[in-house]
């Protein structure tokens, strides 16, 4: 085997407990995040086997998928949701796992709180029963979503069995244009690769665009890796990463920090390392993006027109079915389409930077009367920062309210459902049919596009509003 290694190989290889010939690797997991929806059957499995959790200290539970985003101090009204929350609490207590339930100061979306408290660190293997676990790759960790059988597997053995994915590097060079965010970069890449373009691969993001991104921006990009089919995505840790992690509650301290740093500083792709696939894009050509169809790959620059079915790869029937669901026509422009809902939040765009971006546009403007807006912080920590930084005052002044943390309309398991037929601009990650409620229609976009559309009541290029400020 060659001595040169990719970032991905360095982290993966350092976690292989055992390799099965013609089979998967047995991979040791450093951090296991658990939430209420995909864990109950896994805990039940442990019970049936008569075994416990092998490493409760490496396991962290938070309630997020099912939780209401208003009146969290009251009992949860939906009996099924309440039951799932109760089960998680009981299971966590029974097995000695730290549990950040509803109302707990550290509560929030699993992929938001992990980094906030230093559970997420470079060079770690991190899994969770949620496909957007790929978020944690922003720190140079191997992080991916798993199914419930695998949740049980990790609880029982702290290991997972996985065939090693292939390696892909995506370079985005140059500098981003004014008004273009990390979300746009990710939506752009997915639009180029399609939702299956990276299936079977683990992606490393490289190039100036990612180097210059904040940690929050990197998390947004890595979060969306799964939407191009990749198992996960990662970015080599640098000073920015180490600075972010240092001093966080669960991050290594003292000597342990120094030991960790010795390893973390080796976490980059060696110069001659080989990727199974490598792609390069010019970042300066990326526009603010918007989706028009029913998967995240159906996206385009906001000023473009919806492609006609003869231009798309793959089945024209599926394409037409998708536009029909969205009630759009081939060749339509998205700009100016009246909208009904705006959702700012989720593990994709529910961090403080996203609220700053949103506020920068709505400041001094008013929410459009025809828009219902849900502004949902990713965690209590984000919520606190929104208040401290004066963002709450700005959004309130503009006619918006802040809700309490949770996944909310990202998957609409709680009451935050977009009604049938209504059109939402959403900063979340999926625009599948009915994702935000049965019959809902979703346009994925950045917090800037969401803010601009929220004040005009129609799909709006945020640069139009931002330019006015700069002149």
């Amino acid at each position: 085997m060659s001595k040169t290694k990719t970032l991905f190989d360095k982290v993966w290889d350092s976690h292989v407990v055992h390799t099965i010939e013609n089979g998967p690797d047995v991979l040791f997991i450093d951090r296991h995040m658990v939430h209420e929806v995909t864990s109950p059957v896994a805990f039940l499995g442990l019970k049936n086997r008569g075994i416990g959790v092998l490493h409760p200290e490496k396991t962290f539970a938070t309630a997020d998928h099912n939780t209401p985003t208003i009146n969290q101090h009251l009992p949860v009204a939906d009996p099924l949701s309440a039951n799932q929350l109760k089960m998680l609490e009981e299971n966590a207590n029974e097995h000695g796992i730290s549990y950040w339930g509803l109302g707990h100061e550290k509560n929030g979306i699993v992929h938001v709180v992990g980094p906030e408290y230093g559970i997420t660190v470079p060079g770690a293997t991190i899994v969770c029963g949620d496909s957007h676990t790929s978020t944690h790759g922003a720190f140079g960790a191997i992080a991916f979503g798993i199914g419930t059988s695998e949740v049980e597997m990790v609880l029982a053995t702290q290991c997972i069995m996985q065939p090693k994915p292939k390696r892909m590097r995506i370079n985005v060079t140059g500098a981003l244009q004014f008004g273009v965010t990390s979300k746009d970069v990710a939506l752009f890449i997915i639009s180029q690769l399609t939702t299956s373009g990276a299936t079977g691969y683990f992606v490393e993001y490289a190039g100036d665009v990612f180097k210059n991104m904040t940690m929050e921006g990197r998390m947004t990009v890595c979060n969306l890796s799964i939407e191009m089919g990749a198992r996960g995505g990662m970015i080599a840790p640098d000073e920015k990463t180490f600075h972010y992690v240092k001093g966080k509650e669960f991050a290594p301290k003292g000597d342990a920090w120094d030991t960790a740093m010795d390893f973390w500083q080796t976490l980059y792709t060696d110069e001659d390392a080989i990727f199974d696939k490598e792609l390069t894009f010019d970042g300066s050509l990326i526009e603010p993006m918007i989706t028009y169809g029913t998967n995240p790959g159906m996206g385009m620059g906001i000023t473009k027109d919806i492609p006609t079915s003869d231009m798309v790869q793959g089945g024209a029937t599926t394409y037409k079915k998708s536009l029909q669901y969205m009630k759009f026509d081939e060749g339509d422009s998205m700009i100016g389409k009246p909208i009904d809902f705006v959702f700012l939040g989720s593990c994709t765009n529910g961090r403080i930077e996203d609220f700053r971006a949103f506020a920068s546009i709505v400041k001094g403007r008013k929410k459009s009367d025809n828009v219902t807006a849900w502004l949902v912080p990713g965690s209590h920590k984000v919520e606190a920062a929104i208040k401290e930084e004066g963002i709450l005052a700005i959004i309130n002044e503009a006619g918006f309210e802040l809700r309490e943390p949770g996944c909310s309309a990202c998957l609409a398991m709680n009451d935050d459902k977009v009604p049938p037929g209504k059109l939402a601009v959403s900063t979340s990650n999926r625009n599948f049919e009915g994702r935000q409620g049965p019959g809902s229609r979703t346009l994925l976009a950045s917090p800037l596009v969401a803010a601009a559309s929220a004040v005009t009541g129609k799909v709006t290029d945020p640069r139009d509003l931002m330019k006015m400020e700069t002149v």
Partner: protein
Amino acid sequence: MAYDKFNTLTSTAVPLPIENVDTDQIIPARFLKATERQGFGDNLFRDWRYNQDNTPKEDFVLNNSKYTGKILVGGKNFGSGSSREHAAWAVYDYGFRVVVSSFFADIFRGNCLNIGVLPVQVSADFLQKMFDAIDADENTAFEVDLSTQKITMIATGESESFDINEYKKNNMTNGFDDIDYLLNIKTNIQEFAKTRPI
């Protein structure tokens, strides 16, 4: 959880010639509130299968009694989206043992293998032939043989091989699961854990 052994299956098939069938279509999020693995089959493809007033949508294939069988044939990129194993449970619970497509999303494929549903990936050509054969005669049967890794259209004898790694094949054939395997090497794992700095 151990599951049924899989050797060969001969069955008619249910066609779903749509690409990018995502896990939110297979089982919408609002049906993920259960704490036990039961009853998911009732909500398989819920929003394609039922109107909002819960009456069946007549044009959806699961509501067409013409089509039956334990094989579900889907379009390219089947199972994209969420990691919810509930999607695989719903497919299994409804009565399917095999899903055929020309391309599967990663996590969905893994989840299927973990619960005893066999994902069979065939070429785009073969997939089209299967759709055409079912279209011409809904009673046409297919044989899926795990030991030879072959899927055959019984009427014409045309067949194609599919991939599965040896380890998973052995598990499926014997109804073994990964956790049993890992529990057997627990001492190795515990030794390894001691070397982890975090």
